[in-house]
């Protein structure tokens, strides 16, 4: 209890939940990427993920908890931090000593959270409705077509792309920073930093590429 109540404990909790979400993001990206190469493989993996009891009833609740925890803790920390300086500076040059990405994690986080709302509306709620409310028959061929259908709207593709740009900015600070938070700042973590930076650029832009690919292929 002492650990999570302390400023360092909360910082570590943010870092670990962020790293967990990065693992999820990697597997989500890998699955989405298969849609570029093979409709069949994408459908097979999606069907497995959507119907495997372990994924549905163990991993999915853990993931939702991880997402909610990361966002709620982020908001709580932001509110606490805003109270630690009761009078703001008349002149404050934040850009002189810290990058934009590190100073605006709450902003990029809010954009990502808003996107998750859209993503749930587009995919998760219809999926829950299909399987557990209307209890429609299993159909392992439907996933690719459902995804393609969503990527026909240029406004949706635009919002999707913009959101992933903010995810890139969020990860650019958050990924490497999570190692510092858990106490790893040495020659090994410094060597890892270029990987974290590359990941924060390649994976979100990869998601954007997949969306644009399906939009233009269908177009």
């Amino acid at each position: 209890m002492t650990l999570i109540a302390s400023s360092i404990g909360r910082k570590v909790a943010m870092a670990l939940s962020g790293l967990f979400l990065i693992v999820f993001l990697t597997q989500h990206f890998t699955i989405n990427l298969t849609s570029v190469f093979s409709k069949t493989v994408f459908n097979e993996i999606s069907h497995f993920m959507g119907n495997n009891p372990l994924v549905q009833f163990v991993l999915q609740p853990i993931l939702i908890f991880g997402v909610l925890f990361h966002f709620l803790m982020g908001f709580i920390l932001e509110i606490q931090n805003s109270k630690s300086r009761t009078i703001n500076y008349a002149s404050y040059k934040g850009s002189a000593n810290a990058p934009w990405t590190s100073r605006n994690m709450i902003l990029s986080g809010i954009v990502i959270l808003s996107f998750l709302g859209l993503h749930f509306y587009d995919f998760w709620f219809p999926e829950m409705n299909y399987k557990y409310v209307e209890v429609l028959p299993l159909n392992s061929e439907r996933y690719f077509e459902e995804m393609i259908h969503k990527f026909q709207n240029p406004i949706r593709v635009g919002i999707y792309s913009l959101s992933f740009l903010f995810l890139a900015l969020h990860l650019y600070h958050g990924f490497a920073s999570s190692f510092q938070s858990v106490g790893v700042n040495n020659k090994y973590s410094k060597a890892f930093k270029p990987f974290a930076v590359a990941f924060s650029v390649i994976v979100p832009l990869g998601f954007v590429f997949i969306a644009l690919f399906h939009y233009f292929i269908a177009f």
Partner: protein
Amino acid sequence: MNLILKVWRQPNSETKGKIETYPISNISPDMSFLEMMDVLNEQLMTQQIDPIAFDHDCREGICGMCSMFINGEAHGPDRLVTTCQLHMRKFKDGETIVIEPFRAKAFPVIKDLTVDRSAFDRVQHAGGFISVNTSGNTQDANSIPIDKHDADNAFDAATCIGCGACVATCKNASAMLFVSAKVSQYALLPQGKIEASDRVMNMVKQMDEEGFGNCTNTGACEVECPKGISLENIARMNREYLFSNLKG
């Protein structure tokens, strides 16, 4: 040099403050910032205006007393210097300079530009020491072999002068760089390892009680620190704190 100074004036901790504007002329580029403030105060006194209260002591970058937030940066636009080491040649003729106190809930303003940084003292009292019998039988520290790398890192951490620039510049008013330097300067040495667990637990507890914000790894503290204290110290403190918690 002729300058326009916009200075935070606040009679005491209970009264609301505001920015006052003072033009000043004939300032030498070779003056230190504090010498310029001395000239301003002379000018104010001749005009029957209360001189500006500001912290200063050694005026050679060692004591950590000077504490102004100048044009949006702790200790002004230069790097690895305190305000007393900042020279007027870093500013342009005719420039407007905004001078404010270090701002944090844990650093309440006493008057004008002076702030109460005793929160740092209380953090230090909570564990920033080693318990040694100093009755005369103390072992010579030089007889204890210490790895050169550890000795250098401990010395680097010990160069923290506790000025509070890290808190002032952090967007969250976090004191992690200061506390981590004080933890590290002992944690790396054999004399400090005995109480390492209690030290980090007590100092972090006190830091949180003082109302400092949470660290979000922006790195601004390291950039603005006049002594170049490294973020590696914060990682070390996080490690020490986690292991201490796990040990129970």
